């Protein structure tokens, strides 16, 4: 019979398991890595979070309503999962891709014919990228309608807007890399926009494409941006973004006060009735002393029992997140198997294909460009939109998060959102060669 340290047993257990796995799990080397057993007790569940660095992105306990799918639709989490998928598939792609005008296109073809699952990996990468743009945008919309950008979350909203821009930057730089006609002309059109920036436009465009036209220099710097610069910035900002979400308490309560902060998670909520009492007799305030005061019974009970509506993150939220992550992966895989990433002919600077369409998330911008002066449509409108988005929490000072109390903000945002969606849909589906109006059911020029 082996001597077993009773501290290494689950509480309430009397018998010792002598199976080989159980013995390994009690051994010192195992315990040096996993410091405690997995216990199905409140203490054990809290320990799971305390002793695991990765679980530190979550609070140990969360309000029960966070478990409700309706609260966040899990969009932020899905975006993070998609980023993870992009990171993994991106690393695979890096092994077979050379950012050179001479070989990039060939590498794409080789991926299809010479690398096991190569095309699938590229499809997954492309579809995750499309979905990430979509999901990040939806996340922003959801956060707006929930009023979750209000105090104390203003700055996290700003970081969120920047993350959206970085996501678009990823998509745009990645778009060029296959070096086919689709890539070449979408990026030519996109980078020529920069030319219209007042004063520094020409110089800025030179820095971006590194020459008189899109070429080897452009490919190399887009590659560097895509695989090194942007991932670093995104990882850094995403860390701050998630950390702030955790600190601010995960979910907005639909009230006039609106903030549910870490203070409230880590201390029992300060009872409303206690505050006036504390003001009246500060020396008595604290602990349970206030219960001995002469107050009417109702308020005592109310004050004494703040309802604990929190549950342990591990396993309640974690298991939901795992399910959502698996669902996301399944959707991406389904799309990747069904629809291949396009690869048109080798990039040819002398032939512009008809129509030369930007990727769908820039189609709205392209639609604007076909109607207005490039300075207005390409620079002023988008820059203005970004500026308004960034400053939104500082413009909208109304602390109320209930929809019925913020009609103006919701109506204005909805109109702008509808405009953006309509422009994008027209640009994506209703435009053919020469940017002429077409019916999408007669001939579609959509390229994903």
């Amino acid at each position, binding site marked *: 019979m082996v001597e077993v340290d009773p501290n290494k047993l689950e509480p309430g257990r009397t018998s010792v398991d002598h199976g080989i796995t159980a013995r390994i799990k009690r051994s010192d080397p195992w315990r040096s890595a996993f410091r405690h057993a997995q216990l199905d007790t409140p203490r054990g569940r809290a320990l799971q979070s305390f002793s695991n660095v990765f679980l530190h992105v979550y609070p140990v306990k969360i309000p029960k309503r966070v478990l409700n799918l309706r609260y966040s639709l899990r969009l932020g989490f899905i975006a993070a999962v998609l980023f993870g998928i992009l990171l993994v598939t991106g690393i695979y792609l890096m092994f077979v891709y050379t950012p050179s005008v001479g070989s990039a296109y060939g590498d794409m073809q080789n991926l299809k014919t010479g690398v096991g699952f190569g095309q699938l990996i590229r499809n997954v990468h492309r579809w995750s990228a499309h979905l990430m743009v979509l999901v990040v945008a939806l996340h922003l919309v959801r956060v707006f309608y929930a009023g979750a950008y209000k105090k104390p979350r203003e700055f996290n909203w700003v970081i969120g807007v920047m993350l959206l821009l970085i996501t678009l930057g990823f998509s745009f730089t990645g778009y060029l890399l296959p070096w086919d006609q689709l890539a070449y002309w979408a990026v030519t059109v996109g980078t020529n926009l920069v030319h219209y920036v007042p004063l520094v436009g020409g110089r800025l465009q030179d820095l971006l494409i590194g*020459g008189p036209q899109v070429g080897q220099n452009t490919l190399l710097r887009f590659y560097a941006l895509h695989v090194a610069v942007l991932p670093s910035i995104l990882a850094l900002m995403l860390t701050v973004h998630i950390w702030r979400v955790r600190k601010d308490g995960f979910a907005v309560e639909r009230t006039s006060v609106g903030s549910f902060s870490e203070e409230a998670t880590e201390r029992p909520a300060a009872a409303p009735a206690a505050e006036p009492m504390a003001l009246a007799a500060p020396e008595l305030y604290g602990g349970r002393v206030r219960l001995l005061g002469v107050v009417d019974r109702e308020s005592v009970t109310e004050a004494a029992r703040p309802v604990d509506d929190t549950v342990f993150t591990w396993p309640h939220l974690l298991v939901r997140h795992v399910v959502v992550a698996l669902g996301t992966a399944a959707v991406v895989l389904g799309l990747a198997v069904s629809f291949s990433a396009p690869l048109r002919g080798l990039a040819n600077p002398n032939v512009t294909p*008809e129509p030369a369409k930007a990727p769908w998330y820039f189609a709205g911008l392209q639609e604007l460009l076909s109607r207005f002066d490039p300075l207005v449509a390409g620079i002023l409108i988008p820059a203005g939109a970004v500026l308004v988005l960034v400053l939104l929490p500082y413009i909208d000072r109304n602390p109320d998060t209930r929809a019925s109390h913020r009609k103006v903000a919701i109506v204005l945002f909805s109109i702008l959102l509808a405009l953006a969606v309509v422009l994008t849909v027209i640009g994506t589906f209703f435009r053919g060669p*020469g940017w002429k109006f077409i019916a999408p059911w007669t001939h579609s020029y959509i390229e994903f």
Partner: protein
Amino acid sequence: MDDTSRRDFLRGGWKLSGALLIGAAAYTGYEALRPLASSAGGAKITVGTTSSFATGTSTYVSAGRMYIVNANDYLFALSQKCPHLGCHVPYCESSGRFECPCHGSVYDLAGEYIAGPAPRGMDRYEVTLEGDNVVVNTGVLKAGPPRGTNNFLTPPKGPSCIGKA
């Protein structure tokens, strides 16, 4: 000098060093990204003799990425790059106009703006005659004529090329 001023001095020193570091990083970034003076472009190209460009025709010269057009016996060297957003503007034989497939800008044979979102006509290289030879200086690119210039505007010869693809 009391403690506070020394502390302030050091604090300022850190800020200054930080600013210098950022400045150095930005300058290095600029140096790494700025395009190097390229050997391409800027050369004088002899594209042919005057007789090789008949009135009312457009000839593509791939060496200079440009068209040599003869509009009413005036020769122009038009950059293929659309002044709107840089697409290659093809010449449409059937309509006798330049029609950009990207956003639908249309120019007449001399590259003058007719329709679409472009801010001006097609950009032009300097053309000189050396004897009977037509020489284009690709080092000098002049911005195209402003909107509303229509010295060479003629009705379209025939149907537009856009939409037939």
